[in-house]
């Protein structure tokens, strides 16, 4: 069984969806893996089914369901370890031990993960897969230096043993996640070039014949491994270009992903993020939410865009649209109603997070300062809060100072400037009525104020003093 590295939010859907039906991209893989789990008799089939189910649930932020699946893998691996030792089959014992260690890492159990993976490397240190799993486990536990060393071991062992190009590409892909960006980019470019070479003509024919499109983290045949690895390598490469500021190549590479799978949620969200036109951005956000409504990365990117003035007006009722509308309500300072979705997707942590009043209280509410220069983020956090009595007292005590940009007003009498609204960073504010300030001020000025409250997505301010910058 080959093992591919895990990456976030990587799901696929059937190539052709029925008209008007919007399906979450990972639905198909989940159903496939549930069928495999129900029918599986052997260790590898059971293990890959439950491991993939855990990973698929994770991409949808269904964390409890994911952990349930990982615990099933632990039980399966424990049985396999016991049986293998009784049978004197040390290769099987090593395989079961390394997967047990890997899954402990996914569950955050670092002691157990280390102990089991150490055991696995004692028995199968000459197996590249062991080291690749060690690397992924260390990555899960955020030990990147250990992960890089393990991944280098995997590549070295695979090269020494002359393993297949596909296996070697898997190990190089894993390594790319833990090395400095220039090396990672080179590794990924090599992996993609290898996968697109004539060497894989036979595999591509098989992929075409089977109409394979699914992407899994644990795969058992070359065609699925090829599709999954190419998808993830392209996504990682695009992200690498994006991080380097090479937006054009990043977009082109994300488009390559979509050429193979038009509803890849990661690529759709990325193109939405990189778009220059609001129309294009809106279109890709709609598709990205439909492909995976529960990606926090997509939600955060969408929220940022809305706060910068973006908007989408549609009456779609898909799960993705409902989550989008919930984000829009949050941005407007409203509490979204997600009851129907939460019934449809019980145990979804994204929905729970959206439905829970935000409680990131800015630090100044807990301090004793009477004069504060807040960041826009702190103001946004403040707008989401249901203030406690103590926080209300603190807010009344504080005078705030910010650089503001006023919205232009009609000309005022000589020696006066009238303003009524404006923005602090990207946070809109307004006064209770137009205020005439003595003096002549540009639209960008330094405002001293008190915060009275919130109306929709707008702060209500009481001006205290206005100064030129």
């Amino acid at each position: 069984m080959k093992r591919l590295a895990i990456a976030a939010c990587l799901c696929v859907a059937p190539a052709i969806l029925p008209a008007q039906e919007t399906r979450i991209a990972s639905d198909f893989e989940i159903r496939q893996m549930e069928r495999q789990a129900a029918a599986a008799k052997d260790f590898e089939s059971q293990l890959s089914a439950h491991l993939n189910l855990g990973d698929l649930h994770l991409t949808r932020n269904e964390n409890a369901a994911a952990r349930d699946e990982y615990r099933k893998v632990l039980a399966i691996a424990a049985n396999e370890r016991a049986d293998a030792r009784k049978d004197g089959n040390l290769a099987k014992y090593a395989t079961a031990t390394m997967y047990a260690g890997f899954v402990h890492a996914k569950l955050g159990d670092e002691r157990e993960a280390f102990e089991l993976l150490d055991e696995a490397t004692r028995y199968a240190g000459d197996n590249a897969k062991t080291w690749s799993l060690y690397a992924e486990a260390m990555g899960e536990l955020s030990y990147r230096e250990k992960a890089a060393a393990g991944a280098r071991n995997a590549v070295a062992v695979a090269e020494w043993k002359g393993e297949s190009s596909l296996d070697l590409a898997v190990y190089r892909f894993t390594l790319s996640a833990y090395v400095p960006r220039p090396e990672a980019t080179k590794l990924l470019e090599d992996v993609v070039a290898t996968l697109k070479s004539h060497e894989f003509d036979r595999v591509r024919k098989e992929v075409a014949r089977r109409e394979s499109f699914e992407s899994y983290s644990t795969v058992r045949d070359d065609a699925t491994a090829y599709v999954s690895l190419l998808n993830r390598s392209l996504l990682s490469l695009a992200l690498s270009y994006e991080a380097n500021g090479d937006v054009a190549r990043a977009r082109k590479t994300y488009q390559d992903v979509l050429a193979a799978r038009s509803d890849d949620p990661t690529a759709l969200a990325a193109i939405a993020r990189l778009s220059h036109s609001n129309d294009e951005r809106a279109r890709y956000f709609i598709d990205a939410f439909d492909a995976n409504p529960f990606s926090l990365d997509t939600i955060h990117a969408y929220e940022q865009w809305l706060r910068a003035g973006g908007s989408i007006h549609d009456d779609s009722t898909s799960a993705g649209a409902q989550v989008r509308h919930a984000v829009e309500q949050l941005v407007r300072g409203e509490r979204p109603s997600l009851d129907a979705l939460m019934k449809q997707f019980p145990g979804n942590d994204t929905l729970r997070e959206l439905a829970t009043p935000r409680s990131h209280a800015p630090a100044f509410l807990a301090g004793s300062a009477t004069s504060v220069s807040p960041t826009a983020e702190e103001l946004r956090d403040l707008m989401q809060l249901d203030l406690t009595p103590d926080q209300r007292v603190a807010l009344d005590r504080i005078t705030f100072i910010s650089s503001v940009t006023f919205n232009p007003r009609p000309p005022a009498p000589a020696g006066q400037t009238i303003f009524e609204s404006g923005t602090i960073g990207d946070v809109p504010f307004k006064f209770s009525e137009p205020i005439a300030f003595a003096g002549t001020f540009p639209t960008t000025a330094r405002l001293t104020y008190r915060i009275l409250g919130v109306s929709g997505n707008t702060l209500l301010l009481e001006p205290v003093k206005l100064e030129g910058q």
Partner: protein
Amino acid sequence: MNALLAVAFFAQTVASTPRGVVVAHDGVVELQGKWKSESVSTPGVIALGETKTAVLDEIHDRVAIVDLANGQTTFAKTQATPIAAAFAGNDLLVLDRDAHVIEKIGGSSIQVAQDPELLSVAGNHAYVYSRIGGVLQEIGLEPFALLRTIRIPPFASAMQCDARNAYLIYPRDGQLRVVDLAKMQLAGQFGVGSAPTDVAITGDPTALTATRLAIPDPLVKRVWLVEGRQSSLQAFARGFLRGMLGVGLFRGKMTQFPTGVDRVIASGPRWLAFDSSTGTLYNVTKDETNILARGLGPHSFALTPEGVAYWQNGTLVAQKLD
């Protein structure tokens, strides 16, 4: 419940020192009844010196160095993944697998080959074996420097050194390979069972006998007892012949290790066998094998002058052995 599920994963380390049994557990290190000090959070391998002991934390890349007289502990940061350590006088050597270095704590470090896993100190030298390239490197202790490097077969799982030789165990091809440390070259190799995984020196050489080795073999669920290399090739061959004629501890097809054993620890002529898969510790004598404890971690037991000590369910158990 499956026996494997009963294996305790709580990290703890037990070591027998001249002043008593030291246990590292739950973030503390203690010499019971004498002192208790802060330690690393996930204790792994322990190294013993004459006056100090060192507890490695391979997860968090730290080492706790404890004064055995009073428990005074100092901490040091290591490089990535410290998996083996040894004292050379007052100097603490630590092998950091994922950083590919051997370091002298408080001093310098030396780059070694990829995947260094096994460390042994003999005389004025340390020997580091790196699995992937099959690289054995000799490190001078004073001055601290890389002296010699040879390539031998890769993927040994255990190594022990006596004054003259390094003994390396290879599970995949069932071989014990011997390196002559004076010449720093491979001196021979011998088939030992089916999949030997560990090696312990269970007796020093005498005028008539070679170093004796205990080698667990989980595939056939036995422990092989063989003699190491003597000074001449003839004695070497004879020694091994005698060892292999003994063919392990058990005659016949029955084994008293239901799931096999894969580790041995030894102190002088006494030794214990351990099954990592179930955490079962066995006492083995010439006549019988009995289970001392189940559900132990791989570092949670030690031979003591009187018998054995192990950490089980939050308690240090000391047991006399005949």
